[in-house]
């Protein structure tokens, strides 16, 4: 079990306000309302006079729009309005990188399709009706004429010499093409190396699949002269920026408010077209308009991820040490570039970070994004790391076989052990526990007797396999890291405001955006500790662009590392002011004042001023303040990271049994040894690990978005898109290691994505270990029952042709 207590532990005599809360499994502040059915999600919002919107969507993958006729839609009972691109005249959504055209081709995503459609499900017109049923009725009356074009449905088709172009400006259907690093002499290393292994790996297109689909409620507030857009987004301020540009409003005239959010996982980390269209309809009609995406649209027409193709080779010396890595990665980004990350999100992440936890002395990579006639791609938990980690782990496994080395031993010989370590990819890694996590994970699997069970099973003709994945999760990407990626929108810093009221209680803000990660609890733990205040008197506010100065939202495990650091700095600043006011009252220096149990105390004396008394002076008796102290108790602080960020790390161990009759992969055991630095709340960290691993397993074994040759998506519901249940997802044994981060304010490193990053590699390696007697090695995900069945039953694999 974990090293860190999962419980609040025995009650001590120390008052609650003096016990440090960081590091404890404090009960979640979010839970009571969510458990009582009193959460407020976007579809729970009802405004007087509210109308309901749905979208007429393209039924073909690639076509010129000959005509869009919505006149019959208006005849449908209950329909109030229907608008096309021509009616609304909105600005396009354009995501930019500061790279030359040879590396990045910017493309525009219109809010509603104009002239051309590029995927099945692309929104063409918005239908607004008195209820959602009538809006659906209205969709069927729209008449769209298409001049169909041949759809581009694969990387190979996109690169073909005579390929039709998805975007006229993007030759070879290529949006991103970067070649990086290319260490001098790398070709010579491959020529002379005693061992060179190659893999050709494809990973399936996936849907991040928050259980709450996307949605928005928009209305114009005459009193504030503001569009108020309630929407479930991970990036409220970026939605505000794009909404104001598309709608041609001043940015102050748009207020984005995020209610409770039913997951996001990256899919809600980009600006959607539908929320802008719903806002435009609300402005036109001067009535509130609600849009709630249905599951079919969520599966086919939202933002997808993960469809990548790696051709990678690695050179090793005779002892199994990596000499060089050479990779070509192509990411199928679908029809459009997402805002703010662009179509570069996957290839740039993979290219920059692929060496991962291993010492790679020479590296060359080409990363490309192709555009195809599929729904567009956005970030999804882990972004490229689940894929490149799987490829790196495959290369090591293959080399271990060639060199007759133990798969764990070859990793031991290659993981980075001396920190800080500056890699061939120009990234400096802060200290982590790569080798320790690897050794401990293997030990835990060994101690449970899985190697003996594997031998015994083999004797019975059963197929057990054991696999590992050793990896890091770079978090705390500050302005420097994103500037290096040449983003036009450089996310990085975060701002927190901490305010005390006259009752001595604290409200504070973050620019990050919780959607399940427990910020209301973990960030309150940080503030309560810093101010020695009862956590019940500390309340977080987030997700309102009028209330929060600015923020970049929640992604890349940045919330605790960056947001949590800003929160701690702001709380400390407020603490300084509280001490300064008390010191002035006592005519001593602030150094002689300490904050404990919700009060300022004079050291070595009995003088006490409670926070309520200090707040009384700061607001209601301001004449008592010395001249150099301003009235009020509100402070802000910012935090940014000016190095390469911090690296959480983990090793996953997975034991599978393959069933020869059905081809199914059953996970018998899953062990995770993780190190995310200081865990603010270990129970929350474990929740992130378990949930992340479940999503990684989903990608390894179950989920894939596929299309037919005409570009029609094959999964329109959960009967076809196989989301794993409690049947398929195993219990996970978690063990924590702790290598605190030296430059975040709390020592935390971030824990949001690690589970998802490691699981596909661990599962694939375990499956290949189980297949070892057959000589078959699988390189692609998802691993389907058909593939496993063929491998176990000696039939030729279809894998490479899929």
């Amino acid at each position: 079990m974990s090293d860190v207590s999962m419980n609040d532990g025995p009650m001590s005599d120390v008052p609650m306000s003096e016990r440090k809360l960081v590091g404890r499994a404090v009960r979640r502040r979010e839970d009571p309302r969510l458990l009582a059915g009193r959460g407020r999600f976007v579809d729970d919002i009802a405004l007087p006079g509210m109308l309901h919107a749905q979208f007429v969507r393209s039924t073909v993958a690639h076509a010129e729009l000959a005509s869009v006729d919505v006149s019959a839609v208006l005849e449908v009972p209950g329909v109030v309005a229907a608008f096309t691109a021509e009616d609304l005249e909105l600005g396009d959504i354009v995501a930019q990188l500061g790279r030359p055209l040879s590396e990045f081709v910017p493309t525009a995503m219109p809010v509603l399709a104009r002239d051309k459609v590029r995927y099945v499900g692309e929104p063409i017109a918005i239908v607004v009706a008195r209820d959602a049923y009538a809006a659906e009725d209205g969709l069927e009356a729209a008449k769209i004429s298409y001049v169909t074009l041949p759809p581009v449905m694969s990387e190979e088709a996109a690169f073909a010499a005579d390929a039709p172009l998805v975007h006229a400006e993007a030759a070879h259907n290529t949006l991103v093409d970067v070649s990086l690093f290319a260490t001098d002499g790398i070709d010579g290393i491959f020529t002379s190396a005693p061992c060179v292994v190659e893999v050709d790996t494809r990973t399936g297109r996936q849907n991040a699949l928050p259980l709450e689909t996307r949605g928005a409620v928009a209305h114009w507030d005459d009193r504030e002269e503001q569009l108020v857009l309630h929407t479930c987004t991970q990036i409220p301020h970026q939605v505000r920026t794009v909404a104001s540009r598309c709608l041609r409003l001043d940015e102050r005239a748009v207020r984005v408010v995020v209610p409770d959010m039913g997951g996001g996982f990256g899919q809600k980390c980009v600006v959607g077209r539908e929320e802008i269209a719903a806002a435009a309809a609300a402005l036109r009609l001067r009535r509130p308009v609600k849009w709630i995406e249905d599951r079919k649209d969520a599966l086919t027409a939202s933002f997808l991820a993960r469809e990548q193709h790696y051709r990678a080779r690695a050179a090793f010396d005779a002892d199994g040490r990596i000499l060089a890595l050479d990779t070509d990665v192509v990411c199928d980004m679908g029809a459009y570039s997402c805002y703010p990350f662009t179509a570069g999100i996957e290839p740039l992440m993979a290219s920059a970070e692929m060496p991962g936890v291993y010492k790679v002395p020479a590296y060359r990579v080409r990363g490309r994004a192709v555009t195809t006639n599929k729904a567009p791609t956005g970030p999804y938990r882990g972004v490229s790391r689940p894929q490149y980690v799987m490829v790196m782990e495959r290369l090591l496994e293959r080399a271990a076989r060639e060199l007759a080395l133990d798969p764990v031993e070859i990793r031991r010989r290659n993981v980075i052990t001396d920190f800080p370590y500056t890699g061939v990819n120009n990234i400096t890694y802060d200290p982590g526990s790569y080798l320790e996590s690897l050794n401990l994970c293997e030990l835990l699997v060994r101690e449970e007797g899985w190697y003996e069970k594997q031998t015994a099973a083999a004797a019975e003709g059963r197929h057990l396999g054991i696999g590992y994945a050793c990896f890091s999760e770079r978090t705390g990407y500050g302005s420097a890291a994103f500037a290096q990626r040449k983003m036009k929108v450089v996310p990085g810093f975060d701002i927190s405001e901490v305010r005390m009221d006259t009752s001595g209680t604290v409200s504070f803000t973050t620019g990050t955006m919780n959607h399940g990660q427990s910020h209301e609890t973990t960030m309150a733990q940080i503030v309560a500790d810093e101010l020695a205040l009862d956590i019940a008197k500390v309340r977080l506010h987030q997700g309102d662009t009028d209330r929060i100065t600015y923020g970049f939202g929640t992604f890349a495990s940045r919330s605790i590392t960056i947001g949590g650091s800003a929160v701690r700095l702001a709380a400390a600043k407020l603490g300084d002011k509280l001490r300064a006011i008390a010191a002035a009252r006592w005519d001593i220096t602030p150094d002689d004042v300490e904050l404990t149990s919700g009060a300022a105390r004079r050291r070595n004396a009995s003088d006490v001023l409670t926070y309520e008394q200090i707040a009384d002076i700061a607001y209601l008796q301001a004449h008592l303040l010395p001249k150099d102290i301003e009235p009020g108790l509100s402070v802000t602080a910012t935090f940014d990271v000016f190095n390469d960020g911090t690296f959480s790390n983990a090793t996953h161990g997975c034991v599978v049994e393959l069933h020869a009759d059905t081809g199914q992969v059953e996970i018998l055991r899953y062990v995770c040894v993780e190190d995310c630095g200081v865990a603010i709340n270990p129970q929350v960290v474990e929740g992130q690990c378990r949930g992340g691993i479940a999503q990684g397993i989903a990608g390894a074994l179950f989920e894939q978005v596929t299309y037919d040759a005409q570009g029609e998506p094959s999964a329109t519901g959960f009967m076809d898109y196989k989301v794993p249940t409690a049947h398929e997802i195993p219990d996970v044994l978690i063990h924590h290691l702790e290598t605190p981060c030296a430059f975040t304010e709390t020592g935390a490193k971030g824990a949001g994505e690690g589970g998802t990053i490691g699981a596909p590699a661990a599962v694939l390696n375990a499956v290949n270990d189980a297949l070892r007697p057959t000589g078959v090695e699988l390189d692609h995900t998802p691993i389907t029952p058909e593939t496993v069945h063929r491998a176990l039953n000696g039939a030729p694999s279809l894998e490479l042709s899929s």
Partner: protein
Amino acid sequence: MNTDPVVTHPPLQLIALDVNGEQHEVITEPRRTLVDVLRHDLRLTGTHVGCEHGICGACTVLVDERPVRACLMFAAQAEGARIRTVESLSDGDGGLNDLQRAFTEHHALQCGFCTPGFLILADGFLAERPDASKEEIREVVASNLCRCTGYQTIVEAIDACATARRGACATPCDMSAGKEH
């Protein structure tokens, strides 16, 4: 302008619903689902909609104490039945019941969107099978989808609640053991 969510086409009908022990009359289209009437007409928004085709279970409610997908049932079909939603679990003061407390203790929810469905599913199941083993509980938990937790803590929370209820009641446990209603 008429802003009522009910339009005058297709024909409307008046239905009577018994929800959480309260009687409601709703004028609605025959095609309106139970979950839409609960959420948007009666404003009981604790029950959620995740797929609208009966797979994810976020909309699970109890109809005559048995778990039902409220997205697959027309509101009109629920006339004459007793409907219970997540809002019925907390006591009158808004305090959480033992099942809800077990969920928070075990961190069985993250975003909380699927949670009402799992709570109601477990509430109905444990009433029927108070002696359920952990494996039987896992089997039932596999009825619904959660994207955040990986399910382990949901199974553990329901199992802990069932175990505590068995410990608290006189042996042998009867069918109504631990029920709050």
